[in-house]
């Protein structure tokens, strides 16, 4: 009998949640979507100990992301950036300046003269997806190896988040 009552309460709870969710969904509809994909990684190449290396956002070695969504709609764009690159047991400092990001929503994205330049990758940026339903994002950065930096291959994750401005719970 106790089990039956518990199951009944659980089912009732699920029903309430179901109804609440339904109301939430239908009372705040949205139509815009955005998908982001990686085009190029940020590649510093060979780095000598003690010699900082900067990859410009204009460089072919800069990170590049492609956002696809509803033409003319606004999206929030933000990053999670690493402070260090790592290899087994070793760290190397990375720096992303407040001008290290650029975006272009034109039909023919131009990395050399983007439509939105000197963007801070540390802040959420709102920008409009182009008429071709695309928005390109570039990101440069700097690594600062120590004088006695341990040799080896270092990596770090760069995560970009994209969200339509009219999405529920947006920033």
């Amino acid at each position, binding site marked *: 009998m106790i*089990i*039956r009552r518990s*199951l*009944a309460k*659980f*089912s009732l709870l*699920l029903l309430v*949640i*179901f109804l609440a*969710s*339904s109301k*939430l*969904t239908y009372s705040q509809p*949205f139509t*815009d*979507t*955005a*998908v*982001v*994909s*990686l085009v*190029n*990684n*940020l*590649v*510093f190449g*060979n*780095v*000598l*100990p*003690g*010699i900082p*290396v900067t990859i410009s956002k204009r460089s072919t070695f800069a*990170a590049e*992301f492609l956002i696809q969504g509803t033409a003319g709609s606004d999206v929030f764009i933000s990053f999670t950036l*690493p402070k260090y*690159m790592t290899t087994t047991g070793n760290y*190397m400092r*990375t720096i992303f300046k407040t001008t290290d990001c650029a975006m272009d929503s034109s039909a023919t994205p131009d990395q050399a003269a983007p439509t939105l330049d000197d963007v801070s990758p540390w802040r959420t940026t709102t920008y409009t997806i182009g008429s071709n339903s695309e928005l390109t994002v570039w990101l440069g*950065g700097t*690594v600062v*190896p120590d*004088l*006695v*930096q341990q*040799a*080896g*291959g*270092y*990596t*770090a*994750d*760069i*995560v*970009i*988040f*994209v*969200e339509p401005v009219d*999405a529920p*719970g947006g920033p």
Partner: protein
Amino acid sequence: MNIRFNPAKVGRVSSLLTVILVLLVATSAFGQDAANGTATATVQTALAVTATNQLIFPTVFQGVATTMGKTNNDSTAEFTITGQGSAGINLILSLPEYLALADGSDRMTISFSATDANVDSTVTTPATFAGSNGWIDQNPRNLPAAAVIGSAGQTNVYLGGKVTPSTYQTAGTYTGDIILSVAYNGT
């Protein structure tokens, strides 16, 4: 009112409602996306400098200047630099003007000519070094700006010098520090 629950049916209904709930939650998050990129770098070999041989003058007599060449395998100063092959380096020698007794009671002049250094990027020996092995007859106060770590990951610097004892030079063992500083220059 007597309500009877069939546990099996309740379980199926619960599962169905759970699936619906998950779908609804997923739908509410639809429209957002994230992508992972990677930053990559390959750090090259760090520099290391070792004083392999000391600059050793033979017995010196008062008032008689004595020179040690840069081609003596035993007595020429030799520095060994290891690092990333073919990488450009800056070389700076800090040279003493005097050698001194341990107690500091007397000093003896030491000098270096504008051709007292060889920079060897092929790792031979001081005695067998030739111009084709690197940079020959270099000014130790202005070592070649184009110096590199040899393709084998090593470059040597050989250094000679001259001491000039005075007529009244106090007998004893005189020493002085010779310091080679090396840094990558990014080339």
